[in-house]
């Protein structure tokens, strides 16, 4: 680790090992990264990111959370018993890390800027999720637990946990919303093949938030021998910080690879945001690089409004459209009605379909460090086809949202200069025209094989420019 890491940089902002960081002359005294360190404040639970985070959980879970906080401190932060060394070794040998940072030639031409893809779709399992799942299942082993449980939305975290659990010889039960089971069949088979039990959750609309609630209930009764492998940077402390730390390998690599291949830091990093583990993983190592604009692309779904009467938000844009509240153990930004009831979110992508978001991201958005943007279902599908056709990469629908932002973030119609600085102070802007700079790193968080059925269906229902004729495929559905 000879490269500057975010940790070494945060200690002394004036110390620079490369020219790029010297561009951060306008060092912000209220550096958001500095307050992102989850140190408990007296009289409060630990894990605050500004006003967000905390440990809002039933008392029965508190001892488990305290035990986990202690384990996180010792094994993850202090590398006790060589935990992090083993984690990194297994990520290499089992996971296939590092993943490449690839120059996307057609996209670069199309958008008249250098577009680089961080290829998390090439990680074992086909998504960034393994980084976190492997870390947590390994941690469960170090903690002496006999069983892991997990929730899953798109099935990506469930499959990653099932793989990691099989790899580390740990019994695994995955809670999955019934609706998600129906739209993600291949992932259900994969989990089963890896020896995991998949338990359907029928409460509510049967998606990720119900699965999280159900997994928390299991944990409340099984804390003594069970670790809950949460799938994103959500939930009570220490989960948001710990999952970020396991996922930050994505941006640590991307930052190093950018310096190696481009010769400098990128102007922008773009990542999709549901719960936010891919987002925080893609951003973490860049937080101290003030010249790098960070764009969190949320699912704009069909519409950015909330239908309070029906208790439904036809989107999953918690950062962009949500309000502060408390859900699943943390204070964060939520999609809720005026009474504080959590509404049902929507996205064409099951993995982004969540009414909350990681508390650290909520804080970084408030601080102006992360720019929240929303991409709707239609544009995500267009980007899915664009990347598939022009770059030979079939992305997950989640990742397609990030790709679509290249289009939204490039003001092609007005033809204005596309090289303006990206940082607009964090003002949410669904169509942030020309907000992107010269070199853009986009994280392809996962591959799209799991989404093919949905894509055939959704494409057939739309008129998408350049998409192949789906009629031959829809007949069998």
């Amino acid at each position, binding site marked *: 680790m000879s490269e500057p890491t975010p940790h070494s940089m945060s200690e002394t902002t004036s110390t620079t090992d490369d020219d790029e960081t010297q561009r951060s002359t306008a060092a912000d005294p209220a550096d958001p990264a500095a307050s992102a360190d989850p140190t408990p404040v007296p*009289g*409060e*639970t630990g894990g605050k990111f500004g006003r967000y985070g*905390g*440990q*809002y*959980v*039933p*008392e*029965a879970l*508190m*001892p488990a959370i*305290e035990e986990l906080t202690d384990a996180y401190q010792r094994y993850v932060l202090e590398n006790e018993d060589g935990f992090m060394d083993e984690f990194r070794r297994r990520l290499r040998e089992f996971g296939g890390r590092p993943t490449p940072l690839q120059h996307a030639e057609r996209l670069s031409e199309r958008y008249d800027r250098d577009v680089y893809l961080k290829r998390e779709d090439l990680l074992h399992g086909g998504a960034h999720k393994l980084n976190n799942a492997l870390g947590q299942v390994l941690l469960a082993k170090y903690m002496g637990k006999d069983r892991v449980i997990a929730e899953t939305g798109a099935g990506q975290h469930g499959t990653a946990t099932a793989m990691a659990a099989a790899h580390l010889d740990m019994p695994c039960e995955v809670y999955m919303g019934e609706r998600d089971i129906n739209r993600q069949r291949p992932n259900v088979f994969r989990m089963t093949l890896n020896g995991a039990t998949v338990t359907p959750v029928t*409460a*509510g609309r049967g998606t990720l*938030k119900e699965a999280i*609630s159900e997994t*928390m*209930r299991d944990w*409340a*009764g*099984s*804390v*003594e021998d069970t670790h809950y492998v949460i799938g994103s940077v959500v939930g009570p402390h220490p989960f948001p910080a710990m999952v970020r730390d396991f996922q930050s390998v994505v941006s640590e690599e991307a930052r190093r690879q950018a310096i190696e291949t481009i010769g400098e830091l990128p102007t922008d990093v773009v990542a999709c945001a549901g719960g936010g583990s891919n987002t925080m993983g893609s951003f973490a190592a860049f937080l101290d690089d003030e010249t790098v604009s960070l764009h969190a692309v949320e699912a704009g779904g069909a519409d950015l409004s909330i239908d309070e009467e029906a*208790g439904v938000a036809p989107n999953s844009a918690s950062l962009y459209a949500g309000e502060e*509240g*408390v*859900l*699943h*153990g943390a204070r964060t930004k*939520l999609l*809720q009605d*005026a*009474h*504080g*009831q*959590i*509404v049902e979110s929507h996205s064409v992508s099951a993995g982004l379909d969540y009414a909350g978001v990681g508390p650290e991201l909520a804080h970084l958005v408030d601080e102006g460090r992360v720019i929240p943007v929303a991409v709707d279902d239609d544009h995500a599908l267009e980007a899915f086809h664009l990347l598939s056709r022009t770059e030979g990469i079939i992305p997950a629908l989640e990742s397609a949202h990030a790709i679509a932002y290249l289009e939204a973030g490039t003001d092609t119609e007005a033809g204005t200069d596309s090289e303006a600085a990206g940082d607009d102070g964090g003002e949410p802007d669904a169509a942030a025209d020309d907000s992107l700079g010269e070199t853009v790193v986009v994280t392809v968080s996962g591959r799209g094989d799991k989404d093919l059925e949905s894509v055939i269906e959704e494409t057939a229902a739309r008129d998408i420019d350049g998409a192949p004729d789906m009629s031959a495929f829809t007949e069998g559905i």
Partner: protein
Amino acid sequence: MSNRAVSDRSGNSEAIAQAFADGPAYIPYLAVGDPDYESSLEYVEALERGGADLIELGLPFSEPIAEGPTIQGAVVRALEGGMTPDRFFEFVEDLDVDVPLVCMTYYNLIYQWGETEGPRPFVERAAEAGLEGFVVPDLPAEEADPLREACDEFGLDLVFIVAPTTEGDRLDRIMDRVSGYVYVQARLGTTGAQDDVSDQTAASLDRLREYDVPKAVGFGISAGDHAERIVAGGADGIIVGSALVDIVAEGVESNRSTAAVADRLEAISRELVAGAERGSRARSTGDPS
């Protein structure tokens, strides 16, 4: 009744203190609005006729992470029936009961209510409606100070849950902030009626013996003999939720009349009260069996 500002943590509400004054307290729980507003009014009134000393009224939240399937079902029915925080307060005002009422809900609903940020507007409205306290399962003691202050300002109590795993510093932090009564969780897991009540209760009551606040035991009490054993084991009260919600749910499924369901709620309440009284007599005669 809501104007007193009392800082004494042994209890702000005289009505709650009174509920524990004459023998073991029977504390039933129902989700308000399950399955509809009018039936729910009758069910709560039936609980008082059955001998309730204090009633916990659940204000349904869309993500009840501490509840098992029984109460989740009640929450879904109540929300589908149109229950909201405003309707909940109206419900409390419409109720014709004389026993103290405690609101059990999740923190987001308390936090979001009203024009200004924080829990104070909700507590002020609750006091105005005639509620005497709160139980908030997802609010840990460490985050509870704003709600604690608002409760003190308006003379309400704040009840905390103590789990079988709660001990040491955590127990002290909770007992520093609790008032009215402490909710002793009889076993790990979420709420739900169980055939047996675990030994964990006895251990929990032991740990709490030195604290001078009434101890009410909940989670899994569904019959008179459970109540008897729990009270004989040292509990000052029994909290019963899922066993009652089961009766409401069964009434919905079997399409029973509101009056029939109310009668059953009253009957099981009498059985539980009788069990608690047997337990109390056993304790006073030193015979815990």
